[in-house]
């Protein structure tokens, strides 16, 4: 008789009751599970430690000879520097409240993707060298030694955490696994392990200002093209002020909004809004990247890339900085900027809206205002003429990007704006939004195409909630305020809820914005026909005040 495996044998990825302890089951580096490694020359240019060629799928990762010493020393140094890290290592009681709160765990069923066990990967090493019991009792109290497979495991799971902080919301002690992941990534960099998708943008940002390394003159040309497109849609060519000294406001946004679809439509939205307000502002070719890819690398790299903002604010002698729709850019500004590079240059003052006179007291220290707050304030004071009817063909929901929502509490302002510019707004289920929002599955430098299937399983809880409102309420659009989301959510929506489009908030604002002297709007910023608007009807809508 033919000897074939039974279905049970076929589907068992591992025996139902593994003989091995969970800590001893090692990850398999199959294609699609890991990001491509950073190039040696990139790491050299950035003066990163131990640059070398390596392949995550290979047995030997080419670690430096003294790798264990390097890692132990680096870990000890971080424990000394970050009191929080030491606390996080010490106080977890293994209550399990965080266990099922991570989207990676929900999508993969991999125990090491439970935040508590993700942290335990490092904690077990901590126990051996930094706790009395661990030193004496070793394995009996969950301590373990470094070996090369442990390094691989740390890499595997540090890049299956999007540093979204959802788990910390549920931890009674506030243990922030995201910060543990950040430290693990830092440690790995000490032995030359980084990923291409993160380090290439870090290099480009370091040398040319933006993540794709577009030269200043080309950057200006690309923005000019977007202004041309604005004119095609509205009949008005918005100003594109660059490097203007003594402007009141410096505007900084992620460069993804200048280069990528559909982010560019959000950028066009900014240009049109600022033009309509006749804002005294400037863009910069030096600080042409709001996103901080350094924050996925190490605290020092984040600090270095962040420094550009204040340096440019000082050089251009602006009063304050307005920041575009971005996620990690705001996490860095809100959580770290003051310590990294503060205080702000002396020429800067606490921001006040030039249109409404509202002082942004929350930004008194950093001198940086989020555009959702800025626009919400405009709408609240009735300073914008809006025709939300132009967005009537969409039924939109709102994705709370992890960083602005959990990282800085920006929950109501974007909703306030969205509801003012769209008549049809539906929330996703309560435990998937606001502070409890589910990550897009590809933040913190994971939105690279080689791990698309990993991203789809990690983004499953978000995709699932989106699909729910699509089926229940006919939702066909999802707005967000993060440039990485604008890149990661379209494939996620296309997989889990096909038919839902994704855009930034200010794309919708500009679509609804009735501008002074504009031509009849027959299309939206994507140059797609506005349904139900024929040329004659549009006449009635023409013009502002």
């Amino acid at each position: 008789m033919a000897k074939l495996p039974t279905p049970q044998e076929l589907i068992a990825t591992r025996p139902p009751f593994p003989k091995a302890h969970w800590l001893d089951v090692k990850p398999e580096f199959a294609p699609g599970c890991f990001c491509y490694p950073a190039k040696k020359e990139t790491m050299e240019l950035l003066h990163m430690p131990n640059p070398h060629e390596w392949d995550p799928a290979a047995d030997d990762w080419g670690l430096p000879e003294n790798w264990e010493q390097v890692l132990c020393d680096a870990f000890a140094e971080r424990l000394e520097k970050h009191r929080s890290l030491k606390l996080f290592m010490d106080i977890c009681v293994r209550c399990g409240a965080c266990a099922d709160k991570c989207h990676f765990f929900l999508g993969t069923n991999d125990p090491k993707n439970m935040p508590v066990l993700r942290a335990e990967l490092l904690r077990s090493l901590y126990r051996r060298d930094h706790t009395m019991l661990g030193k004496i009792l070793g394995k009996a109290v969950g301590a373990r030694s470094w070996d090369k497979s442990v390094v691989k495991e740390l890499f595997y799971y540090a890049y299956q955490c999007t540093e979204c902080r959802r788990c910390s919301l549920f931890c009674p002690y506030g243990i922030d696994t995201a910060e543990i992941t950040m430290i693990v990534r830092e440690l790995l960099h000490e032995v030359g392990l980084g990923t291409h998708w993160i380090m290439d943008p870090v290099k480009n940002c370091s040398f040319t200002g933006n993540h794709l390394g577009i030269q200043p003159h080309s950057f200006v040309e690309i923005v000019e093209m977007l202004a041309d497109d604005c004119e095609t849609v509205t009949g008005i060519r918005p100003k594109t002020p660059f490097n203007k000294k003594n402007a009141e406001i410096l505007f900084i946004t992620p460069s993804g909004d200048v280069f990528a679809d559909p982010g560019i439509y959000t950028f066009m939205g900014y240009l049109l809004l600022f033009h309509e307000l006749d804002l005294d502002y400037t863009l910069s070719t030096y600080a042409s990247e709001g996103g901080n890819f350094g924050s996925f690398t190490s605290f020092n790299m984040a600090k270095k890339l962040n420094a550009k903002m204040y340096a440019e604010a000082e050089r251009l002698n602006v009063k304050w900085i307005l920041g575009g729709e971005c996620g990690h850019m705001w996490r860095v500004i809100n959580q770290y900027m003051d310590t990294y590079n503060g205080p702000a240059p002396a020429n800067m003052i606490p921001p006040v809206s030039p249109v409404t006179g509202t002082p942004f007291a929350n930004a008194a220290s950093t001198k940086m205002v989020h555009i959702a707050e800025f626009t919400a304030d405009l709408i609240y004071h009735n300073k914008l003429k809006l025709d939300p009817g132009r967005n009537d063909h969409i039924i939109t929901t709102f994705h709370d990007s992890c960083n602005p929502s959990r990282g800085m509490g920006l929950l109501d302002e974007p909703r306030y704006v969205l509801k003012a510019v769209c008549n049809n707004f539906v929330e996703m289920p309560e435990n998937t939004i606001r502070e409890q929002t589910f990550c897009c599955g590809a933040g913190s430098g994971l939105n690279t195409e080689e791990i698309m299937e990993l991203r789809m399983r990690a983004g499953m809880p978000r995709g699932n909630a989106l699909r729910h409102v699509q089926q229940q309420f006919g939702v066909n659009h999802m707005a967000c305020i993060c440039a990485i989301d604008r890149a990661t959510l379209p494939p996620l929506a296309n997989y889990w809820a096909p038919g839902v489009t994704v855009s930034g908030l200010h794309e919708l604002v500009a679509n609804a914005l009735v501008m002074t002297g504009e031509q009849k709007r027959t299309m939206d910023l994507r140059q797609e026909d506005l349904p139900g608007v024929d040329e004659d009807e549009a006449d009635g809508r023409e013009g502002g005040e």
Partner: protein
Amino acid sequence: MNLLEYFRNDKEDILRLWTGAVYAASPFETKGLLRTVTDPFGNPGADMIREAAGALYDAVAGEETTAADVKSAMERFVKLRAVQQGTPSQALGVFYLLKPVMRERLLPHCSTPDDVNDYLTAESRLDSLALLAFDMYMAARETLAESRVKEIRNQHAQITRWARAFRGGSFIAG
């Protein structure tokens, strides 16, 4: 009782056994959470199994249903299997785990040749549904492949437009 009635009577039990067998393929440490957390958004994976299992079972039993309805109930589950780590046979083999459970719980009730015939027809329906799932699995993998290509294009979309305009000479460099 005819076979359909046995199917209806034993539905809860059989589905519990089947989903248990599906969970058994997951690592031991995670099974408790998968089984016990019932919030459809807090534990979406389990909700997907639940939805798929119910519809699949009814279709196998011979209840009134359409291929489109069963497909839509199985879709989320199949899509999840399509992006979880493992081979295609691991992803879709779970459907065949229903067979041994059915044989254990339902086949003994089949005493006449007609009953056995009905039973075999039910198993054949399961085979057809697994084939439907295979179509969905492949469509999901196609979507993934397309997404990869599209994403690379989107990342540089505006730069490509700029380069074209620039090279075409219709754009004057500033």
